[in-house]
């Protein structure tokens, strides 16, 4: 007992042979210890499985109507009940995961690609290019984001594809600004100067050094942006500006359920629960990633 106490007081001695771990391994270790982040990851994986294996999981198709079974309460046959067309809500919620995750991932990837491009150009070349791009970002951020999305869909016409485009566009300035500020700080580093001195081309410096050094915040911001994108997609669907019938988009399902609030509240409960859980999953995962990848960003 005494011996071990003695030992605890000693400064830890690193064995000489232990190699320095990569920051990614370190991040994974700290992520693994974060319970909330793990719960979030499990939720996200669960919904991804639902989306991928939807045809195997859902007992019925998205548009199999049985008018004799309209607006039935949840039962062993229809776990989440049926809607006003007699369609199985459980099946529709399962297929809905496909739409929401698809829009979430694709829109965010789109905004990351465009945002990175604009951010890198603004940060690296500076001067008037930077002024113009940054001003455009400022102006876009001056709109409440969902309002800008509504405006874009109002112009392009309501459809799921246009909703996806709108969501991607409104998220561009967030990534653009993030990358721009990273580029500005990385640009000052000595190794960039060294790379320049040995005659490395601008594009090579950008792709070999600047972008890889900006990966961590992009991953964090990207995960959280998927959560927002899913809510925005559902909001547009709810307003009738997103997915068209009979697509089982969760927001659209909620908007259809409005008319049956008194008779059949389950038509409203389950799609909403699905949105909330998916968004919660991505939020928890994003928070966990932030704590693991960049302790400085923690607040």
């Amino acid at each position, binding site marked *: 007992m005494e011996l071990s106490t003695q030992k605890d007081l000693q400064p830890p001695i690193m064995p000489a042979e232990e190699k320095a771990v990569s920051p990614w391994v370190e991040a994974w270790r700290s992520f693994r210890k974060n319970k*909330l982040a793990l719960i979030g990851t499990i939720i996200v994986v669960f919904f991804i499985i639902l989306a991928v294996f939807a045809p195997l999981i859902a007992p019925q198709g998205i548009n199999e109507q049985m008018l004799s079974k309209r607006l039935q309460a949840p039962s062993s046959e229809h776990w989440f009940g049926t809607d006003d067309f007699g369609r199985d809500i459980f099946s529709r919620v399962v297929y809905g995961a496909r739409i929401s995750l698809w829009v979430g991932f694709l829109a965010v990837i789109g905004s990351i690609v465009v945002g990175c491009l604009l951010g890198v150009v603004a940060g690296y070349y500076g001067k008037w290019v930077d002024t113009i791009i940054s*001003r*455009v970002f*400022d*102006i*876009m951020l*001056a*709109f*409440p*984001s*969902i*309002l800008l999305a*509504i*405006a874009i869909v*109002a*112009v*392009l*016409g309501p459809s799921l594809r246009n909703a996806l485009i709108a969501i991607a566009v409104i998220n561009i300035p967030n990534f653009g600004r993030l990358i721009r500020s990273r580029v500005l700080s990385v640009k000052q580093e000595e190794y960039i100067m060294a790379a320049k001195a040995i005659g490395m081309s601008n594009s090579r410096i950008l792709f070999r050094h600047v972008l890889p050094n900006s990966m961590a915040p992009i991953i964090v911001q990207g995960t959280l942006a998927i*959560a927002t994108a899913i*809510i925005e997609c*559902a*909001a547009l669907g*709810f*307003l*009738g*500006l997103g997915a068209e019938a009979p697509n089982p988009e969760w*927001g659209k399902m*909620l908007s259809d*359920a*409005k008319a049956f*609030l*008194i008779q059949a*509240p389950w038509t*409203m*409960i389950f*799609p*909403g629960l699905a*949105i*909330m859980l998916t*968004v*919660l999953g991505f*939020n*928890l995962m994003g928070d966990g990633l932030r704590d693991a990848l960049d302790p400085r960003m923690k*607040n």
Partner: protein
Amino acid sequence: MLSYTLKRLFSLIPVLLGLSLIVFFMIRAIPGNPAQIILGQLATKEAVEELTKQLGLDQPWYLQYFTYLGGLITGDLGESLRTKTEISQEIWPYLAATIELTFVAMLIAVFIGVNAGIISAWYQNSWFDYVAMVLALIGVSMPIFWLGLMEQWAFAIKLDWLPTSGREEVRNPIEAITNIYMIDTLLQGRIDQFWDVIRHLILPSFALATIPMAIIARITRSTMLEVMRSDFVRTARAKGLRMFWVVYKHSLKNAIIPVLTIIGLQMGLLLGGAILTETIFSWPGIGRYIYEAINYRDYPVIQSGILIIAFIFVMINLVVDLLYAAIDPRIKYN
């Protein structure tokens, strides 16, 4: 302070010009002939030509923009295609309804959010802290349109405590003076109607307040935790000051800046969220005004509605920026 205020006002000019430019190009970005799209396929050629003229689409775009900008500066927001009324004349009641709703929602979010955050920090790791933070996590992820529907179902339909929708009792209409009904009913001394207004406000404002409330609670908690560990708080406690004063006077004052930033940022969420909340609760605000205009392809109304909300958002952020300096004299702007 004055020079900073002027500088900030000056820097708004490009942003406001940009806003007007984006909104201006909205209608011109409609694929095809906008006038034809607005009127539909069955419209006569004359009608399309007339609308083209009315919207000024027959002129070069820079002339159109300067005409539009000139109109905006003199308060001309264009004419609604549906009601044939000047938008600047009909917009105020809608705007007032939204201001009332978002103001009450913000009040709820700040009051509950800040207090929940403070108590969570004060009793860190207690059951209250635990429950509040789980609720806040869920709250951040809550789709407000779903929450609104659930509220309607639970409190208006099942329990029948509150009205499902609208702003006033149809059988007991309120005489509008300012169109902010809480003020109007009080001005007229109609306590019964004031109570009515409050009852109609509860469900939509709570739905709208949820997300900002959750975010404010989380930020307040984390900044308070930091402040409460600092030396001056320890000193205050050592002096024998009661914990209540330590928390609410000394700590809160120092924790308020990040909270204030978040409150400013949340205003955008509130104004954007208003369009969803107003749709669910049939609240006759500017969000609903825009939503209806979208269904009628009433583009001048969509343009002006969006422009006004964005303008309000920009102004609120300016005020928040200026408030920092007022609250924390350590902040020096140069």
